[in-house]
């Protein structure tokens, strides 16, 4: 769908692109190569500005900042975001709590595929939305129950009715053709012949994405959450290539985040508004969980299929799940040690 939309968007904007970029060039706010001249102008930090300032452009990697520098960075962002979105925006910098290692468990037996978690996640985490660029951190795969039918035998294939595009000289739409697909649009869930398999960032203990990042902009915090400093990301997309769970999303264009829908309670490493050209992904709602709250998806799940907890706490939900349920992890063969567990009652 994303692809379809982006394609559709591109098709529709191709004609107006020139005019579009000329217009944008005048009002462009984010520093870029072409904005180098603008950068040379004296920065004005006192005034609230939608512009990314010289200081923000040349700030250090978040992890290497001193406490003062972190405070400055946060202040700068709060001023800029508040001005941009016309409301008081806070940017948290709560560090990982000692003695906490977040783990997540999802009951695939209970999941009904309603995707309320997806919606709640988008509302909470300020992802880009709309036709131009729709970013979702959670993808719910629809799995065919009993994947053998008469047609399978006759036509020798997997379900292929759900397409993201008609490509090449395809005469029928083709989408996900392996175990499941995430573009299902039923009238009602759960469907009789399907079960559901949500996927998001697994917060691996040995994250391949972190290993391949050339500038260490993505890293694992001590509470086990893999975070990204959006201001340091160079957009090389090595991490997208390395992630076996397809959990990472890229801001192909300037994110579209309506002012009224913007969630003003943010975290530097979490749901603060992103810029174009950087990678983002699920952070277990770092802005909530580090303050003792549930993630948005846990709260939104109507059937209680989602559990979050402290893996180091023997009395936590997650530890109980691990101790008493049938648990598995996705692609365990890759030794990424996900802290996202699937289970059945």
């Amino acid at each position: 769908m994303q692809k379809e939309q982006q394609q559709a968007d591109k098709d529709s904007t191709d004609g107006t692109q020139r005019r579009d970029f000329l217009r944008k060039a005048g009002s462009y706010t984010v520093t870029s190569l072409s904005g180098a001249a603008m950068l040379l102008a004296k920065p004005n930090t006192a005034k609230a500005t939608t512009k990314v300032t010289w200081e923000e452009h040349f700030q250090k990697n978040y992890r290497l900042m001193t406490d003062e520098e972190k405070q400055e960075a946060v202040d700068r962002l709060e001023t800029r975001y508040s001005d941009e979105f016309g409301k008081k925006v806070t940017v948290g910098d709560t560090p990982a709590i000692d003695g906490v290692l977040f783990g997540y468990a999802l009951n695939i037996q209970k999941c009904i595929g309603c995707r309320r978690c997806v919606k709640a996640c988008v509302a909470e985490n300020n992802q880009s939305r709309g036709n131009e660029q729709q970013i979702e951190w959670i993808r719910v795969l629809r799995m065919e129950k009993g994947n053998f039918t008469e047609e399978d035998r006759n036509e020798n294939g997997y379900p292929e009715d759900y397409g993201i595009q008609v490509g090449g000289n395809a005469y029928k739409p083709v989408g996900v053709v392996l175990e499941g697909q995430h573009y299902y649009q039923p009238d009602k869930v759960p469907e009789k012949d399907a079960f559901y398999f949500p996927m998001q960032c697994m917060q691996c203990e040995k994250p391949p994405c972190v290993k391949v990042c050339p500038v260490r902009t993505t890293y694992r915090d001590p509470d086990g959450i893999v975070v990204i400093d959006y201001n340091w990301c160079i957009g090389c997309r090595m991490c997208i290539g390395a992630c076996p769970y397809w959990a990472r999303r890229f801001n192909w264009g300037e994110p579209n985040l309506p002012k009224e829908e913007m969630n003003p309670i943010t975290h530097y490493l979490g749901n603060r508004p992103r810029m174009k050209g950087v990678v983002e992904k699920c952070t277990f709602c770092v802005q909530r969980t580090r303050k003792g709250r549930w993630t948005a998806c846990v709260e939104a799940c109507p059937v209680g299929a989602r559990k979050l907890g402290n893996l180091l706490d023997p009395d936590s939900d997650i530890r109980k799940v691990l101790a008493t349920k049938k648990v598995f992890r996705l692609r365990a063969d890759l030794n990424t040690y996900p802290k996202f567990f699937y289970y059945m009652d």
Partner: protein
Amino acid sequence: MKSFFHFVIDFLRAGFTGGVLFWAWMLFLSFFIMLWGYGEYVQIANGMIVTGLNDQVSWGFYLANFVFMVGVAAAAVTVVFPAYVYHHKELHKIVVLGEMIAIAAVVMCMLFVVAHMGRPDRLWHIFPVIGIFNWPNAMLTWDVIVLSGYLVLNIVGGFYFLYKKYTGEEMNKVFYLSVVFIAIVWALSIHTVTAFLINTMPARPMWFHSMMPIKFITTAFAAGPSLIIIIFLLVRRFTPLKIADEAFHMLSQIVVWCLGIALFLTLSEIVTELYPSTEHSLGLQYLMFGYHGLNALVPFFWTAMVLMIGSFILLLIPRVRKNLAILPFICIAAFVGIWIEKGMGLMLPGVIPTPVGEFAEYVPSHIEFMVVGGVWAIGFFLLTFMLKGAVAVLLGDVRYQGASGQQSVAVTAEATS
């Protein structure tokens, strides 16, 4: 120091001296360079959304060309190695031209990487000291090291040789030869590391095999010398510089054997993947046969195969291989075949299907074509200029004549071009 200053001036002058054909060629390239500027501007202003890339296929045309050009850059060693290790006399005379080709190719590589980046304005983040260099963990940082190192080695080696030729001084053999031999090993490293960049990701099973580095090197040493043969034939045609037939025979022999090994490796890969036909082979199946009607890559793959196998068989025949009237056409076929096979034919099936098994076809946007075409134009622009300068120095048309000699230098350069 003064002579060096004169060298720079005279080299520039010689590089930009030429007849109508030369200027028409440079103007033609400039047109595409302007398109590159436009494409880059649109992309930087609007984001990567102007490309055909998306979350499903997030690596595409830019990286495909990058991988291929790293190979061409590395392939300069096919001139340098026989010249210095086997003391091939004829190649020895023109070894510096190979280094010029390497310089142009590495510059192109860097431009492709910048085009691929979502935030080129943050390029400095990857520079050691001022940025953060995730070395030795991130394979990309290794690539940065080997590519920039290779660029420096070739600039130093190539221009030191030309400079000494220009002034007529004795070369410092120890210095020069150490640069040359380091560059030979280094050339292998750039392509090996580029292979490691993509084959160390089990998330992408099509790339996840240990044959990648050797396959990269053999295809590079087939495509690279093919291009070098064509360029050398052009140099021989358009300048008085004499390049002996033996040089071409040597290079075409390298092409044929590397092409043969590359084809063998391709065959091994196909059998290994398709015999068990696990889901991990879906990328390759998609490339070769298409998948449920999605078959954008199929014609490209088979074209590449026909071109590679065809040129291999033709080159095996000594009479054909040694016929310099036919050779360039076979070289073009091999070059194009490998460009397809190792460019889009390698990049796309690696990311299609996605790790969750989704097939999304990718077609580069017109912006991507502009940028890629423009980078090629920049490469050829640079190469033409450097080759003209280098040939003038090799011929002795441009040489240091003391502070007063400038005038006559310009005149002789004019006369020869």
